[in-house]
């Protein structure tokens, strides 16, 4: 049990059914796996599209065997076919004005379409993708020239362009499949060029590409294995959507009579154009069936393309939201908290669980604490502890598929039970937020003055302009931003100044409670010191209750009055900063402090192992696999919060409650050897 499996791993240590030698297969398996895993509407659409496309491909490949007659055939066994005959047992889809069998023509039309489109796709990919790669990777004048050429082609009305090329080519080369394919190719090259080039531009800046260069890989190796391998996923989507478009373009060309020589091949567009005259005379079958064929195949290809996009594009992927509920016993367990006098916010047994394919992930699993006014509570934890989820969970800013339980008492109302509407009204004037990345939180198109105006107007619609200005400048003054910069845009400020503006924006509405999630992580240490001192001021000037979420114990010691240490979704220890730092009682807190490298560190210390998988946390105390002082009871029963000294709470069997520990529960736990393979 103790070995933590890596995500996606099975007990035997290998992907089932594969030996170490099947590396290519492994790659393929990884590529296909998302497609197999997708559920719901996208899957249904994709497979429908794929089926339709497959049917047409089969028709195309086996056309001579499937079609009862040739595409130009108007006679069989010496008997001429009826002219413009409606669908019958002999001619399933009727005949045309020149006695050709419509059914056969539709099938051969499929062959023509598929042939032309496959050729065109191949050419476009073979030309467009390498050009995009080279252009994106090398940049410079080559890039500028290629972009100019491709943009010009792209800007040209595509049908007109295809017509011109087809026209020119057919007079020299002839009006066959190749001509049509080339005409279509030229039109679509820019699409591949663009998509690949743009993907390359973003991948090019990734550290692993720089790593490839630093290893000494030649440019062509870097392009092939480091860039292209990570860019290639964008091509199939474009290819399938292009294929759909290409069918239409081909049909349009033939419709206009420029596509293909009718004696060389059957083509749907050509049939449709002839079918117009027929329809006016009441012969509906000659144009309808080719038209339906075009629609079906294009739809099929489009569904395939969109299906691939939905599957592989992480932004579009919708997680599987199987409805689930928290088990009753989980919800009933209560957690202890240090009780305060008239707290501003009171959190009790808060739980935030996410839905995943492996089952619910218990990111926050029973957390209780309180914060008074003018008090800063530091919530400290490493990655995977659930601290950020907790911050967002209080505010209700959780992604779809997360469920909450417990209560968050704020100004007489329970935030967990509040509606979205109510939360919207509270966020801002009552509860302020300061996030980690100030660069991405300010609207680059709005001046700072506009940001303040918007914030104030939203919550105080009747406020006057003069009042907005006065309060904004007051808030900015509090964070030492000069009034001369009031009308600047965000890009005109440095990172530290932007974070100060964020704080000012959070404060201008004078909220009673502010949550700051890693507010200084992205900043330099001198700027961090400035921000921390501003944060310390605000609780004095505004009577704010502050929840400061961080991974840095130094910041907690510097800026917080009380601290709560989080591990694997639970608060394992909470109390006054002076108390916890001088006498940490929970082994995790002790280990964390010993592992922190500060200027006074003489000896390195680390905690072996890794934080647990929150989808399947360890039994009993979640820290027991890594705890140097674990006892038998720690594995068997979840510890209960104990007030070790006034206002200092810890969840640890080392401190009791004694009566709940079974007779042999105190025996030290035999810990399994924790290897690197299980490490964080």
């Amino acid at each position, binding site marked *: 049990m103790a070995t933590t499996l*890596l995500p996606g791993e099975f007990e035997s240590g290998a992907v089932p059914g594969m030996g170490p030698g099947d590396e290519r297969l492994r790659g393929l398996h990884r590529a296909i796996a998302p497609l197999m895993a997708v559920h719901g509407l996208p899957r249904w659409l994709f497979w429908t599209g794929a089926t339709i496309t497959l049917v047409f491909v089969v028709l195309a490949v086996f056309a001579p065997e499937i079609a009862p007659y040739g595409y130009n055939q108007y006679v069989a066994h010496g008997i001429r076919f009826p002219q413009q005959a409606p669908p019958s047992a002999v001619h399933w889809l009727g005949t045309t004005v020149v006695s050709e069998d419509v059914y056969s023509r539709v099938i051969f039309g499929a062959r023509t379409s598929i042939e032309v489109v496959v050729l065109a796709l191949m050419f476009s990919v073979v030309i467009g993708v390498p050009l995009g790669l080279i252009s994106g990777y090398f940049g410079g004048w080559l890039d500028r020239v290629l972009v100019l050429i491709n943009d010009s082609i792209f800007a040209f009305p595509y049908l007109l362009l295809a017509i011109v090329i087809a026209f020119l080519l057919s007079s020299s080369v002839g009006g066959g499949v190749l001509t049509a394919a080339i005409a279509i190719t030229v039109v679509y090259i820019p699409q591949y060029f663009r998509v690949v080039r743009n993907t390359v531009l973003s991948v090019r800046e990734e*550290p692993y590409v720089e790593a490839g260069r630093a290893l000494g890989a030649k440019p062509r190796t870097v392009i092939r294995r480091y860039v292209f391998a990570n860019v290639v996923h964008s091509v199939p989507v474009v290819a399938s959507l292009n294929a759909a478009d290409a069918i239409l373009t081909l049909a349009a060309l033939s419709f206009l009579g420029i596509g293909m020589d009718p004696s060389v091949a059957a083509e749907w567009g050509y049939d449709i154009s002839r079918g117009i005259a027929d329809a006016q005379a009441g012969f509906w079958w000659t144009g309808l069936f080719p038209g339906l064929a075009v629609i079906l195949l294009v739809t099929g290809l489009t569904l395939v393309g969109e299906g691939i996009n939905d599957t592989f594009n992480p932004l579009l992927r919708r997680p599987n939201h199987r409805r689930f509920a928290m088990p009753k016993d989980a919800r009933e367990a209560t957690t202890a908290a240090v009780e305060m006098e008239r707290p501003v916010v009171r959190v009790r047994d808060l739980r935030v669980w996410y839905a995943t394919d492996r089952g619910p992930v218990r990111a926050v699993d029973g957390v209780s604490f309180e914060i008074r006014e003018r008090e800063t509570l530091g919530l400290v934890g490493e990655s995977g502890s659930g601290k950020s989820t907790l911050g967002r969970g209080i505010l209700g800013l959780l992604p779809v598929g997360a469920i909450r339980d417990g209560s968050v008492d704020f100004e007489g109302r329970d935030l967990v039970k509040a509606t979205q509407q109510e939360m919207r009204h509270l966020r801002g004037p009552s509860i302020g937020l300061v996030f980690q990345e100030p660069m991405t939180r300010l609207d680059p198109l709005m001046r700072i003055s506009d940001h303040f105006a918007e914030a104030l107007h939203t919550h105080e619609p009747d406020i006057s302009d003069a009042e907005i200005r006065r309060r904004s400048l007051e808030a900015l003054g509090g964070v030492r931003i000069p009034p001369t910069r009031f009308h600047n845009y965000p890009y005109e400020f440095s990172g530290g100044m932007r974070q100060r503006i964020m704080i000012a924006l959070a404060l201008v509405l004078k909220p009673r409670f502010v949550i700051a999630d890693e507010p200084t992580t992205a900043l330099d240490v001198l700027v961090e010191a400035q921000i921390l001192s501003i944060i310390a001021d605000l609780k004095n000037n505004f009577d704010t209750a502050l929840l400061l979420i961080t991974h840095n*114990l130094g910041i907690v010691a510097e800026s917080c009055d009380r601290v709560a240490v989080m591990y694997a979704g639970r608060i394992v220890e909470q109390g006054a900063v002076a108390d916890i730092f001088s006498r940490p009682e929970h082994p995790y807190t002790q280990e964390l402090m010993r592992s922190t490298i*500060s200027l006074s560190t003489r000896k390195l210390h680390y905690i072996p192992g890794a934080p647990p998988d929150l989808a399947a946390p360890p039994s009993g105390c979640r820290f027991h696999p890594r705890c140097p002082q674990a006892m038998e009871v720690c594995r068997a029963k979840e510890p209960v919060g104990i007030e070790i000294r006034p206002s200092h709470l810890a969840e640890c069997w080392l401190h009791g409650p004694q009566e709940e520990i079974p007779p042999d529960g105190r025996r030290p736990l035999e810990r399994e050897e924790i290897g690197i393979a299980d490490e964080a």
Partner: protein
Amino acid sequence: MAAAHWNARRSASQMRPDPATLPLLEVHDLKVHFSLRGSFLQRMLGRDTGSVKAVDGVTFKLQRGEVLGLVGESGSGKTTLSRAVLSLVKVTGGSIAFNGETISGLSERQFRPLRKRLQLIFQDPHASLNPAMTILDAVGHPLRIHHIAKGDVEVRRLVSQSLERVGLVPVQRFLYKYPSDLSGGQKQRAVLARAIILGPELVIADEPVSMLDMSVRAKMLELMGDLKRDLGLTYLYVTHDLATARYFCDRIAIMYLGRIVEMGSAAEIYSKPRHPYTKALLEAIPEPDPSHKVPSDLPRGEVPDAAVPPLGCSFHPRCPRAFWPCGWESRDLHSMLEERWATLSPDEYLRERAIVGGLEGLDSPSTEALIPVGKGHSATELAALLDEHRRSTPEDPFWRGVVSVEPRAHGVTVRFHDHVTPELQPVADVDEPVEVACHLYRPDLAPG
């Protein structure tokens, strides 16, 4: 064959670096400037668009077997410097020598064989491994690039050896995994394995632990220390974190806006920091000790724009101890006014703002600044206002740089002292060598 690289190094590892021998890496007056794109019009007319002086005259030596920490905040140029050493960015001036041979200015083809001896580990373990390559492919790629190993079996053997070195065991469990299957600490170990597989002599580590959790950092540092000992590695440790640098480095170089401002043995730097920036950095670190509070009088402001750095000493606008030669100029005047106005009430601000005209003229650096006077006010009023400022904040270093404040027809001319650009100078009377680029330590300039 690659195993020979490792074994040969063992004997080298036990020596203390001897300053008299040839340094492994010697950087002399290195400059790396990136030209700015400028506006369309500027480019059309062929005007000079300016450049960002990311590295602006850096000189240091690195002896075999030692660890030199390059410490600085964002914009200090430490990352650019490390990339320049590895020929991943173009050097604009100065030289870099590796084992006595000049390596700056070599073409990629000439430099390629050197990459076996100079390696790089990155900050973000989640982004420095190619997501499309298995660990076996990634760690084994250097072997293939440099044709060290022939055949899959040989590559696998050497990769396994490297993985064992960094503790990724059982090896079988990691060889065929993709980076997304590994944790942050495991990925960083894989990056280390890739870096050492060719038996390099110098490893540049760019913030190797800053993105790892605290409980894992120590493990990584310990591993890096073990490798240094076992493989005779020399490290250039690039970081902003003075705490880990103290633990890991023998010598420290503090960088600010493209220059080294202080350099010396770690013991000396941490016990007696001399440059005001170094002092500030050390004092600003929040310690996990509630009785220790960060001082409230730390330098304000932020690292300035590297395209047009401050005159003289780049740190002077923020330095609490700056004085007359440090490079006072018109932009400092602009900042001084703005900072003062940030502290005033709205009415006071409006009153003062009206007396002062447009401040755009103060944005190009100059030792003589003309502040235009606001409409309806006189130059003498403006001069009186500036005098009021001086009297209300006499300890502001800004005023030590001002020579004169003279009313003119349409404004006030403020003249500053000529600036002197600081150079790294050794400090006298110390146990271990230390160099500082600060006028406070120049007897001919410093007050008293």
